């Protein structure tokens, strides 16, 4: 059996990214869209770790730690924004984000 190589990781990472993008475009619930966004970031993380391992360099893995931290901060801001919107509209659906189109 062929050992797991860089290309396998990259395929998984690419698939994760596409799934995330698909979710962001298709889903209508804001929370699910957030989760899909996180999926896209994690796809990038997976690629970074795999490249880092196969390039025999550690800086990619260091970067992943930073990305995870930033993603957490992003979620904090994002959830706060959802709450702010929910207070005004009692809804967390993208269909209700259309008041400004004149």
């Amino acid at each position, binding site marked *: 059996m062929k050992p797991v190589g860089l290309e396998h990781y990259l395929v998984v990472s690419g698939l994760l990214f596409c799934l995330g993008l698909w979710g962001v475009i298709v889903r209508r619930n804001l929370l699910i869209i*957030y989760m899909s*966004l996180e999926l*896209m970031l994690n796809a*990038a993380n997976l690629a*970074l770790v795999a490249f880092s391992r196969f390039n025999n360099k550690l800086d990619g893995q*260091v970067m992943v730690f930073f990305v995870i931290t930033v993603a957490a901060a*992003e979620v904090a801001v994002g959830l*706060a924004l959802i709450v702010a919107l929910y*207070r005004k509209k009692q809804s967390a659906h993208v269909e209700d984000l259309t008041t*400004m189109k004149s």
Partner: protein
Amino acid sequence: MNFDYAQLFSAAIPETVVVITAFLALLVDFIFLRNLPARTRTSLLATVTAVGCLSAIAWMGVSHSTYRLDDAIFVVNPMTQLVKQIILALTIFTAFISVQTNFTRHLGEYFILLLLASAGMMFLVSAENILAIFLALELLSLSLYVLTAFNKQSVFSAEAALKYFLFGGMSAAFTLFGLSLIYGVTGEMNLTAIAAKLAGKTTDPLFYVALVMTVIGFGFKVAAAPFHMWAPDAYQGSPTPVTSFIAAGSKVASFFILAKILFTGFAGAEGDAGWHHYISGWTPVLAILAALSVIIGNLAAISQKSVKRLLAYSAIAHGGYALLGILTADQKGFASLIYYVTTYALTVIGAFGVVAVVENYGGDKLSDFAGLSRRAPILSACMMVFMLSLAGIPPLAGFFGKFYVFTSAIQLGAKSLGLLWLVILAIAMSAVSLYYYLQVLKQIYVVDASDKTTVSVALPTQFVIVALAIAVVVLGCVPNLLVGKILAALSLG
């Protein structure tokens, strides 16, 4: 690995000053200003901001050190210092425009976020490393998302922030994925090393995926069509000073870093966007973005009723013109890009300042500007300067900016007029843009006012708007004031 912390600190003094000022503003507001009337509070906090930013600007003016931290995480040279000074000046203008508006009671928090966003921009300007670029970009973006949502009374504000956040998050994911692939192809984090490793490898398909992803990510950031969907809503829904900051400061920083990534990191993969000699690379991708931006931005702006939305579409169009400066892929084009985005930023802050004043008397609809010349003559004159400069009428700064970008795009010696098709398109579209800018001026000068009350303007805001109008005229008449500085910084850096 050991490096000199004292040296790092002295290189990062401007950023340190800005961050300290940010916390100082919060502290001062909490301890001393809670019970004062809102306008006094804002004026005092804006003064604190201005003092902090001015001392950082002065420091950068005095010290001429260059510095390069390991792996180019933090780079200081004359060019970065000049752009940082410009960004801090824009921050000061935004702070004083905020005096006019009355959208929040949480002023300390507002100013700390404003200053943290500027600190993010400064770090972004100094970053030449994938990790540092991503972190600085996120610091900037997260501060801007919260600032956009700052008007808690308005449902528009929350909605705008959410849209900005969703598109911003997607752009961050695209940028990160693109950058991670580039890291994979080259095994390097810093842009110079990436370019060195990329030499000869530019046929790698993975590299093209990475290139397109990165450009898409930054396309969202600079609101280039077709990635501009968030911009009109975010601009319209945010509190007006925040809109001006997004349109001005964030644009200067994003264009600078985009140019740096493409020029330094992807050097050698330019390709050619010329009419009959297409070569794949990043210039053809950007040429498509630029062409779409000038077309969509200008055509969509025509039918807008809200002035903030109109300026948002005009910002998309101006993003397209600015991309022309990057397309040249040489130092001259870079200089024209910096001049263009700087003068655009000054103009647009002034224009949004006027909108912020008018908003207090109704809204930001075109009809709210009717008869403004009788109600606020000075303000109207300034608005005329801004609008004509955005349209590119000589002798204002906007004219020279466009002229400089277009000529540097045409004068690409060896590539002999390859970009002429794009320049002609941009000039034609800029003629179209005159229509909607004049619509605003028609409302101000020709249409009669329904509401005849004189408009009262807070003194700092009035002062800033007039100063910006003068700056736009002066930079248009004597462009060498800024161009000379940019060219000097480029040759040193």
